[in-house]
C-alpha cells in the first residue's frame, strides 16, 4: 500500500498496483492485467453510467498498465470525457492520459481540441495551465494548427482577451475555489496579499504550508490567484516553444515579437525563465527581429550576477542566484555576436569577469548542489567567451580556470573541463595556453578510471595537437590504444591516422605509425585508413622503399593481422622490386612470405593477393613458374568463389598468353592518386552514423580502371564483371583470356541434383554464380542430367544416362519459337516447361506430374538457372528417372534451351543492315537453306514465329515487302554473336529461302537449321 496518499487517493488503483507488485512472475502479472482490462472494458461498456470518480480511476488504471509497457487500445473516449469534467483532478487525469497516449483518431482529436479550447477560454488559470500542458506534451501538428494563433495572446496577456483592456469578470482562487465577480485588475501586487488565516486553512483541510501561502487576502472572500496568471504565461511560453519546434511555420510571431522580447523584463522570475527558452529558439530563425533581446538579456544577467546570494529568495538555489535563468541567458547571448553597443558590451564583459572571479571565491556551501549550480554558470560563461573568441584576456583566464578543474576531485568537473578545453584549443588566442596542460591530459588518458573521461582526454589531445607535439601525442595515443576500451578504439585509430598524416614531416614516421596501428588494433583499422596509407605511399616515391622494407618485416611476425597482409600484399606488389636486391627479401622469399598467409585470409584479401601475384610475374619473371603453379591449382581455378576463380583464370591466361610488353603495360605500377581531402577525416566526422560508402574508394576505382584500360586492347563488352569485392589493383577490368576456340558440341552442364537426390534447386538471386563453376575445365562429352527421383532408390548415378528419346528433337523443335508449353507427355507423366531468358541468362522451370500411385496427381517443380557461357549446338539433356510398377523408368529429353533463346533483338535502319550484311560476307559466315513449307504460308504466323525466335523484325529494309528481314545479337558470357537473317517466301512454289549471316560460322548453320524447321 502507498506510503502516502495525498489529495485524491484512489483506493482501487492502489489495490491494483499492489496486486501487480505482488505478482511473482511475468505471466502472473499479465494475467492480472488482462483480468483488470476485462473488468474496465465491461465497466465502460456497461449500461450503468459511470460517475466521474470511477471513470477517473479506470482511466488511471489504464494509464498505469500502459506505462508498465502493455498496449492499450481503448479508454480514449472516457479520457476525453474527463476533460470536460468540472472536477479538477478528473480533468487532470484526462489530460494526463491524452498526453501519454496520444491517438491519431481524427474524431477524437476534434473532441480533445474542443475541450482544450474551452479550458483556454475559461479564464480559470489552473484549467488554462492544464490545457497548455497538454498541448505542450502532445505537440502535434493538429494541435499546432488549432492553437498556434491563440497562444501568443495568452503569453503576453495571461488570458485570451487581454487583462488590461477588460477587467476580469470572474476571478477564481484555486485554494478557496471561490469565484467572484469584480473588476480586480490583475496587476501584480504581491505585497498586498497577506497570509491566509490559519483557521481558514484548517477549515479547508490544508495540511501544510498554511502560514506561507501567499495566494489569498483575508476573509477568503476577495481572494485572488495573482501568480496563476504568471504560471499561465510560463506555460504559454513553453507551449509555444514546443509547437514552434514541431512545426516552425505555424508560429509566426510577427506583431507579438516586441512584447515577447519584453518578457525578459518581467518582474516574475519564472516568467523570464520560461520566456528566455522561447526567445532563444525563435531568435535562431530570425536573429534580426529579436536583436533587442541582447541588451535586455545583458541587463537581466547583470542584475542576477551582481545580486547577493539571498536577494532572489526562492529563485536562489543553494546560495547561487537564479542559476537556471543565468544559464539560459548566457545561452541566448550565444545566438549573437558580441554586442555592438559599447556600453552593453562593457556591462557584459563585467558580468563575465564577475563569474570568473566568483569561481575563485571560497564556496558558500559544501553541498555539491552549490558547486554544480555555480559551475554550470561558469561553464556556460566560458562557452560564451569561446563563442565570441575575441577577448584574449578572457580566453586565457577561462583556460586557466579549466586547467584547475583538470585535477579536481569531482569526476564530473574533470570531464567537463576536458570537454570545454577541446573547444578552447581551436581558438588562436588560447591554443598555446591549452597546450601547457598536455602532461595533465596525457596523465588523464592513462589514469582516469571512467572510460568516458578517458575519451574526453583523447579528444582533447587530438584537438591540441600541432606540429610541435604531434610525435608525443601520437605515441601516447598509440600506447593508450593497447589497453583502450573496445568502444573507442576505432575512433582513436582514426585520430592517430589523421594526426600522423597531417603532421608527418618525414613519411617513414607516418608509415611506421600506421603499421603500428594495424599491429596494435588491426580489427579497428577501417578500409579508409589502410587505403590512405597505400595512396600516400603510391604518391610519394621517397617513402616507397622504406614502406616495402617495413611491411616485409612486419609480415614476418608469426601472427599478423589480415589488414597487414592487405597492405603488405599491395605494397610488395607495387614496390617489392625496391627491396628485391637484398637476398633476405628476394622475390621468391617475398612470394612465399605472402603466400604463407594466403590460406588464412578472407576472400577479399585472397583476391588482392592474387593480384599481387600477377604483379610479381611482371616484376620478377623468375617467380612466374611458381606463381602459375599456384594459379593453376584446383583450389584456385575451381574455387567456389566467383571472384577468386575469375581472377585465377584470367591471371593464369594473361600470364601465359600475353607478351612481356603487354604484361608490363597492363601491370604497370599504379599512377599517383589525385590529391584530395583525406577520407579518414570524413569517416571520423560521420563515425556515429552508419558506415557509408567511401568516396575514396569510388573515385579511386574510376581512375584506376580507366588507366588500366588505356593501355590495353579494348575489351569486348560481353565480359560480365562479377560482383565487386576489394580490388585495390583495379584489375577488375583487365582483358579476359583470349577467346577460346569455338567448342564444337559444347555442353551446358546441368546438374541440379549434385547435392543428392532430394536437394531442391532454388532460384538464387545471382543466377550466374550457380553455373560459373562449370566454366572450366572444358566439358566432357557426356551430357549431364537432371535427375528427378521421387522415390529414393539405389539407382545408378547420374552419369548413367540413356540416349534421348527418339522424339526428343521433334519435341525440342516445338520450343524453338516459344518459351512455355508441354515438353513431354505419356500415360505416366507430363513435363511442362516455362522459361524466361534475358541476354545470356535463362531461367527454365519444369513442372512434372508424377504417377498417381506415387504422388497422386501432384505437381513437382524444378527450377533451373541457366547461363549461356558461349555459343553451343546441342541442348542440355534432361533425364527423368522414377519407379513405376516396380520397375525403374527413365526418360531422357532435350531441354528446350537452344542458342536462339539468348537472342537480343536489335533494331537498325536499312542502311546499317546492308552495311553489316556486306561485312559478313565470308563464305562460312553465311548459311542458306531452301525448303518446302510444312505449314500453311501465313505472313502473320511467320512474323510471330520470327519474333518468337528472338530476332527483331525490320520493316522497310528488303525491297520486296513479302520478304522478312531480322537482326539480333546472341548474348553469351564469353562473346556476342551478331546475327542477320532474311526469309523469302515463295507462295506459288510453297517454298522458302532462309539466309543467315552471323559473325560465327557454326552459329549461322545452327540457327538456319533450327529456324528452317519452323515453317
Amino acid at each position, binding site marked *: 500500500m*502507498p*506510503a*502516502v496518499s*495525498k*489529495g485524491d487517493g484512489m483506493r482501487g488503483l492502489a489495490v491494483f*498496483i499492489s496486486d501487480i*507488485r505482488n505478482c511473482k512472475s511475468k505471466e502472473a502479472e499479465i494475467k492480472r492485467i488482462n483480468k483488470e482490462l476485462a473488468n474496465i472494458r465491461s465497466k465502460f461498456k456497461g449500461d450503468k453510467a459511470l460517475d466521474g470518480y470511477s471513470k477517473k480511476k479506470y482511466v488511471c488504471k489504464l494509464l498505469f498498465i500502459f506505462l508498465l*509497457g502493455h498496449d492499450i487500445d481503448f479508454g480514449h*473516449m472516457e479520457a476525453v470525457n474527463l476533460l*470536460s469534467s468540472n*472536477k*479538477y*483532478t478528473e480533468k487532470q487525469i484526462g489530460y494526463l492520459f491524452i498526453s501519454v497516449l496520444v491517438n491519431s483518431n481524427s474524431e477524437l482529436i476534434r473532441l480533445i481540441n474542443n*475541450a482544450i479550447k474551452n479550458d483556454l477560454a475559461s*479564464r*480559470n488559470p*489552473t484549467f488554462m*495551465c492544464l490545457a497548455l500542458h497538454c498541448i505542450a*506534451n502532445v*505537440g*502535434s501538428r493538429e494541435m499546432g494548427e488549432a492553437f498556434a494563433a491563440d497562444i501568443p495572446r495568452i503569453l503576453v496577456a495571461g488570458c485570451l482577451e487581454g487583462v488590461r483592456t477588460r477587467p476580469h469578470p*470572474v476571478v477564481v482562487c*484555486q*485554494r*478557496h*475555489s471561490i*469565484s467572484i465577480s469584480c473588476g480586480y485588475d490583475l496587476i501584480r501586487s504581491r505585497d498586498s496579499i497577506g497570509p491566509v488565516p490559519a483557521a481558514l486553512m484548517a477549515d479547508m*483541510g*490544508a495540511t501544510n*504550508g498554511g502560514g*506561507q*501561502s501567499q*495566494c489569498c487576502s483575508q476573509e477568503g472572500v476577495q481572494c485572488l490567484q495573482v501568480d496563476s496568471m504568471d*504560471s499561465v504565461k*510560463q*506555460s504559454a511560453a*513553453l507551449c509555444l516553444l*514546443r509547437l514552434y*519546434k514541431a512545426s516552425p511555420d505555424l508560429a509566426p510571431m510577427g506583431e507579438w515579437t516586441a512584447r515577447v522580447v519584453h518578457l525578459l523584463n518581467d518582474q516574475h*522570475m*519564472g516568467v523570464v*525563465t*520560461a520566456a528566455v527558452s522561447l526567445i532563444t529558439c525563435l531568435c535562431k530563425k530570425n536573429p534580426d527581429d529579436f536583436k533587442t533581446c541582447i541588451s535586455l538579456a545583458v541587463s537581466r544577467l547583470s542584475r542576477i550576477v551582481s545580486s547577493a546570494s539571498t536577494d532572489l529568495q*526562492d*529563485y536562489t*538555489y543553494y546560495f547561487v542566484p537564479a*542559476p*537556471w*535563468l543565468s544559464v539560459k541567458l548566457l545561452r541566448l547571448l550565444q545566438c549573437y555576436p558580441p554586442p555592438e553597443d559599447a556600453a552593453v558590451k562593457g556591462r557584459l564583459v563585467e558580468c563575465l569577469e564577475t563569474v570568473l572571479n566568483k569561481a575563485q571565491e571560497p564556496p558558500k556551501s559544501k553541498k555539491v548542489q552549490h558547486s*554544480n*549550480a555555480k559551475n*554550470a554558470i561558469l561553464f556556460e560563461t566560458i562557452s560564451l567567451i569561446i563563442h565570441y573568441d575575441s577577448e584574449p584576456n578572457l580566453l586565457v583566464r577561462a583556460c586557466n580556470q579549466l586547467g584547475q578543474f583538470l585535477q579536481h576531485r569531482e*569526476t*564530473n568537473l*574533470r*570531464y567537463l573541463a576536458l570537454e570545454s578545453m577541446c573547444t578552447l584549443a581551436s581558438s588562436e588566442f588560447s591554443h598555446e595556453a591549452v597546450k601547457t596542460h598536455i602532461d595533465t591530459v596525457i596523465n588523464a588518458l592513462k589514469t582516469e*578510471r*571512467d572510460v*568516458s573521461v578517458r575519451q574526453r582526454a583523447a579528444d582533447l589531445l587530438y584537438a591540441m595537437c600541432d606540429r610541435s607535439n604531434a610525435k608525443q601525442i601520437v605515441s601516447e595515443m598509440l600506447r593508450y590504444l593497447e589497453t583502450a576500451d573496445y568502444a573507442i578504439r576505432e575512433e582513436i585509430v582514426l585520430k592517430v591516422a589523421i594526426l600522423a598524416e597531417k603532421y608527418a614531416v618525414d613519411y617513414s614516421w607516418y608509415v611506421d605509425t600506421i603499421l603500428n596501428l594495424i599491429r596494435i588494433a588491426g580489427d579497428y583499422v577501417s578500409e579508409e585508413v589502410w587505403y590512405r596509407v597505400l595512396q600516400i605511399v603510391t604518391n610519394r616515391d621517397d617513402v616507397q622503399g622504406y614502406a616495402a622494407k617495413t611491411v616485409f618485416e612486419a609480415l614476418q611476425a608469426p601472427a599478423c593481422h589480415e589488414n597487414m597482409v592487405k597492405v603488405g600484399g599491395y605494397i610488395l606488389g607495387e614496390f617489392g622490386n625496391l627491396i628485391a636486391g637484398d637476398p633476405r627479401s628476394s622475390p621468391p622469399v617475398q612470394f612465399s612470405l605472402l603466400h604463407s598467409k594466403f590460406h588464412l585470409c578472407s576472400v577479399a584479401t585472397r583476391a588482392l593477393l592474387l593480384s599481387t601475384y600477377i604483379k610479381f610475374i611482371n616484376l620478377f619473371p623468375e617467380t612466374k613458374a611458381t606463381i602459375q603453379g599456384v594459379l593453376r591449382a584446383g583450389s584456385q581455378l575451381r574455387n567456389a568463389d566467383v571472384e577468386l576463380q575469375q581472377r585465377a583464370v584470367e591471371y593464369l591466361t594473361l600470364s601465359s598468353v600475353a607478351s612481356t610488353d603487354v604484361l608490363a603495360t597492363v601491370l604497370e605500377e599504379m599512377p599517383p592518386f589525385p590529391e584530395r581531402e583525406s577520407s579518414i577525416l570524413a569517416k571520423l566526422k560521420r563515425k*556515429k552514423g552508419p558506415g557509408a560508402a567511401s568516396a575514396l574508394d569510388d573515385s579511386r576505382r574510376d581512375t584506376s580502371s580507366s588507366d588500366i584500360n588505356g593501355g590495353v586492347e579494348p575489351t569486348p563488352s560481353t565480359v560480365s564483371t562479377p560482383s565487386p569485392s576489394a580490388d585495390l589493383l583495379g584489375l577488375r577490368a583487365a582483358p579476359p583470356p583470349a577467346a577460346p576456340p569455338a567448342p564444337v558440341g559444347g555442353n551446358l552442364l546441368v546438374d541440379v541434383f549434385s547435392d543428392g537426390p532430394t536437394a531442391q534447386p532454388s532460384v538464387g538471386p545471382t543466377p550466374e554464380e550457380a553455373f560459373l563453376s562449370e566454366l572450366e575445365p572444358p566439358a566432357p562429352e557426356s551430357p549431364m542430367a537432371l535427375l528427378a527421383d521421387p522415390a529414393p532408390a539405389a539407382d545408378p548415378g547420374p552419369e548413367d544416362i540413356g540416349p534421348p528419346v527418339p522424339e526428343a528433337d521433334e519435341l525440342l523443335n516445338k520450343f524453338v519459337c516459344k518459351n512455355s508449353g508441354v515438353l513431354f507427355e505419356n500415360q505416366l507423366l507430363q513435363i511442362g516447361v516455362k522459361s524466361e531468358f534475358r541476354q545470356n541468362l535463362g531461367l527454365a522451370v519444369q513442372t512434372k506430374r508424377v504417377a498417381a500411385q506415387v504422388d497422386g496427381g501432384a505437381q513437382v517443380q524444378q527450377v533451373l538457372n541457366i547461363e549461356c557461357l558461349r555459343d553451343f549446338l546441342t541442348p542440355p539433356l534432361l533425364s527423368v528417372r522414377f519407379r513405376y510398377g516396380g520397375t525403374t523408368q527413365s526418360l531422357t529429353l532435350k531441354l528446350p534451351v537452344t542458342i536462339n533463346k539468348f537472342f537480343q533483338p536489335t533494331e537498325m535502319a536499312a542502311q546499317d543492315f546492308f552495311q553489316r550484311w556486306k561485312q559478313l560476307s565470308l563464305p562460312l559466315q553465311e548459311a542458306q537453306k531452301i525448303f518446302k513449307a510444312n505449314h500453311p504460308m501465313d505472313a502473320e504466323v511467320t512474323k510471330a514465329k520470327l519474333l518468337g525466335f528472338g530476332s527483331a523484325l525490320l520493316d522497310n529494309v528488303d525491297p520486296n515487302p513479302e520478304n522478312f528481314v531480322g537482326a539480333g545479337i546472341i548474348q553469351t558470357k564469353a562473346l556476342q554473336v551478331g546475327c542477320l537473317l532474311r526469309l523469302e517466301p515463295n507462295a506459288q512454289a510453297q517454298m522458302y529461302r532462309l539466309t543467315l549471316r552471323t559473325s560465327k560460322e557454326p552459329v549461322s548453320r545452327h540457327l538456319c537449321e533450327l529456324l528452317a524447321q519452323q515453317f
Partner: protein
Amino acid sequence: MQFMLLFSRQGKLRLQKWYVPLSDKEKKKITRELVQTVLARKPKMCSFLEWRDLKIVYKRYASLYFCCAIEDQDNELITLEIIHRYVELLDKYFGSVCELDIIFNFEKAYFILDEFLLGGEVQETSKKNVLKAIEQADLLQEKTENMYHSKSFIGYKKAY
C-alpha cells in the same frame, strides 16, 4: 531536454517523459538501451555520457536512477541540478519521498514534473510556486463538489 526516465536499480521503469515525438517502439528501444548502459556504470564514474548524438545526464537517488537526455548545446551541470530540484519537489510533496510513493502516486509524479518542466525546458524553478500549484489542485478536488454546483461558474455540460 529530449526525455527523462526514472528507473529502479532492477531496471524497472518508473516514469518516462518524452519531449520529442517518437514511436512507442523507439521509446522502448531507447529505454532498454539506456537502462542497460546506466546500470552498468560504476558508482564513482562521472554523471555524463555520450549516447548517440545526445548527452546523457544521470544521477542515482537511493534505489532510483534519474536519467535525462539533453542536446549537444545543453549544460550538463544545470541538468544535474534539474534532477535534484525535481527530487526535492517530490520529497517536499510526499514527505521524504521513496520509490513506493512514485509507484503508487505515479500520476502525481507526472503532474509535479509538468509544473517544473514543460516541453523539455525549465518552466518554474521556485519550489514554492511549483508545489503551490500541485497542492491547490489537491485542495480543489476536495472542495469542488461544494463550490461548483452553481451556474455562476463557467462550467460545461458533458458534451457526450
